[in-house]
């Protein structure tokens, strides 16, 4: 192997320091902008290819009894059809009442479609995703990210000019003010747990919450509208000696195979 003088090595480190300084003084911005713009579609493309491989692998190894799963889905469809019919009636009723009260429709949300270009290489690799739009597109920290079906998947925590970093709802970095869709509209605070589930804390002991109830955002946070679905309660932890009770929430969306999402704009 070729010998190297200390001088050559110091030149290389001087070059590295110079690049870092030029970045922080903004002198490299044009080059960085071009590279980000050109690179983003490729990173997203590679990522969606990786997700397809993961999907294929999951299907081959899941060992799920497809017939049984199909039967379950059929029964769920029947239940949901009844539910949809009931909700349509309610919607019409609601519409007519709103018209009578001249109530402004606040439900229309502006969404920005984004590609999930990768999962962060940080320690919590499976709990943060990189989006291919950034501050130049009007995104900022705190904006919620939803899946194609409108289920909440996370929140933007950091932005670059053409990239954003979003924590997933199962990440301990992701907290939401939430409410249970029960009679009392019980409120609490959700936080990701171990990258697998969500924990809802600060629920008063006097509140009655049940397994299977939906949990949605409460709208008490800035930029996070009310009604974005976080998941269903799978377990309630209630100890008499504690001041608060807590609940474990199962997300309704598979956070492992996300390719496209939408950011809810303010």
């Amino acid at each position, binding site marked *: 192997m070729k010998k*190297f003088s200390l001088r050559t090595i110091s030149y*290389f480190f001087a070059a590295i320091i110079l690049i*870092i300084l030029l970045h922080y003084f903004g002198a490299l911005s044009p080059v960085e902008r071009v590279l980000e713009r050109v*690179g983003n579609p490729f990173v997203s493309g590679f990522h*969606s290819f990786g997700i397809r491989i993961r999907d294929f692998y999951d299907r081959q190894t899941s060992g799920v009894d497809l017939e049984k799963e199909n039967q379950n889905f059929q029964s769920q469809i029947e239940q949901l059809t009844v539910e949809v019919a009931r909700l349509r009636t309610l919607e019409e009723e609601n519409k007519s009442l709103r018209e009578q009260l001249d109530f402004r429709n606040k439900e229309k949300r502006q969404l920005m479609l984004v590609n999930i270009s*990768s999962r962060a290489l940080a320690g*919590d*690799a499976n709990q943060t995703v990189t989006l291919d739009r950034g501050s130049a597109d009007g995104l900022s920290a705190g904006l919620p990210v939803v899946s194609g079906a409108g289920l909440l998947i996370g929140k933007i925590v950091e932005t670059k000019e053409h*990239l954003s970093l979003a924590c997933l709802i199962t990440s301990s*970095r992701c907290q939401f003010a939430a409410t249970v869709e029960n009679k009392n509209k019980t409120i609490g605070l959700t936080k990701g747990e171990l990258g697998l589930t969500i924990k809802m804390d600060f629920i008063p002991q006097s509140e009655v919450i049940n397994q299977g109830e939906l949990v949605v955002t409460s709208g008490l946070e800035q930029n996070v509208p009310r009604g974005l679905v976080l998941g269903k309660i799978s377990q309630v932890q209630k100890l008499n000696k504690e001041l608060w009770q807590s609940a474990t929430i199962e997300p309704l969306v598979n956070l492992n195979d996300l390719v496209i999402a939408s950011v809810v704009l303010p």
Partner: protein
Amino acid sequence: MNTPKNNYRLLTFNVLAALILVFIQQGLLTGLPFGLASLNLALVALIFILVFTDLEVAFYWAVGLGFLLDLFTFYPFGAHLLSFGLTLLTAFLLLEKFFTNRSLYSFLALIAAASVFYQLFLLITAGLINLLTGAAGVDLGLNFWLFAGRELVFNLVAAIAIYYFQNFLSNRLKPVFLQKI
């Protein structure tokens, strides 16, 4: 021949290769199952470049890979650049003083050492840059250590695969025995 045209071709090839490597690292690997996102292909490639070419070429690659990874990740800018540079220097010193590039075991030890040093340097540089820029610190929770452990294992597996692939393609890594006359 070392003509300007050939130099430009070589430069273009290296830049494209570095870009593709970063796209694979950031895009493809992070989508794969088994926690393959922890595989640090860029680092493994860098050590291979160091072993099969020389420190100068490897340094150019370290700067290119570090710069691109700093652009496409949310680590503070400069963390990857400095970590790759420092890891490469450490690996070079280890290779000169303790290891040989003709044995798989020695090679794996070099990759393992480089993986550990890389994580260490990344942690220190990211922490320092965050301190200087006033950003939030790096989360050193259980996930970080699990990720670091997985990275070490996957890097070694990748190194074995590339080593044998290289062995299959060329005679460079084949053992040479001296014959007694």
